[in-house]
């Protein structure tokens, strides 16, 4: 399973079509593929200028790898990929991609949710919203 876990903490964007093709090369046994994408959303007043994501890269990667290992031991999965971005992002930019793949859909769905819930509050990333020329560190939601 280990060689089917891919974790990246990166500044560049990711390409969903390329990720799907890469997955197909890695596993032929998966009948279900769940993609979760987190993206930059606007504020209530539509005034977001940009979102700055800070990371503690080495620890973030380690923490994500740990949760992926945990997911692989809990659910029957063929492939897990997590890519989380940092840096300055604008409205609608991608933030995070979680791909889970399994023979049947239940395992992929459940593992995807489990990984995302963990990512929200256990991996060292911090979001700062900049709007109306003021900065606001995002609290957990």
């Amino acid at each position, binding site marked *: 399973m280990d060689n089917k876990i891919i974790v990246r903490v990166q500044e560049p964007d990711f390409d969903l079509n390329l990720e799907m093709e890469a997955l197909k090369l890695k596993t032929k046994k998966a009948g279900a593929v769940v993609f979760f994408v987190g993206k930059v959303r606007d504020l209530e007043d539509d005034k977001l200028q940009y979102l700055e994501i800070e990371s*503690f890269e080495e620890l973030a990667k380690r923490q994500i790898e740990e949760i992926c290992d945990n997911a692989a031991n809990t659910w029957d999965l063929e492939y897990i990929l997590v890519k989380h971005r940092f840096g300055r992002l604008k409205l609608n930019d991608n933030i995070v991609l979680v791909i889970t793949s399994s023979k049947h859909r239940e395992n992929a769905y459940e593992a995807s949710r489990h990984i995302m819930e963990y990512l929200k509050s256990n991996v060292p*990333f*911090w979001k700062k919203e900049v709007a109306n020329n003021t900065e606001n560190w995002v609290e957990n939601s």
Partner: protein
Amino acid sequence: MGKVRLKYFSRIREIIGKPSELIEIKSKNLQDLIEELQSMGEQYSVLKGENFAVYSAVDQNMVTDVKASIKGATEIAFFPPMTGG
């Protein structure tokens, strides 16, 4: 105890005013280290966690016990609640 690289992230980095520093410390655990740092300046009182929770990682391992030994550590990071995803 020797020189340790201290790293600060997010709100803590902004309050302390620097992303990292290499300093000589005497403390044997995180609790003592936070007190030791406070004696260097009021800005370090953020590490007490009175306004928001403060998390720590010693040599890139998350640490929850502030009494755990930091002997031999080369890097200690402090950061606020995480907001990934």
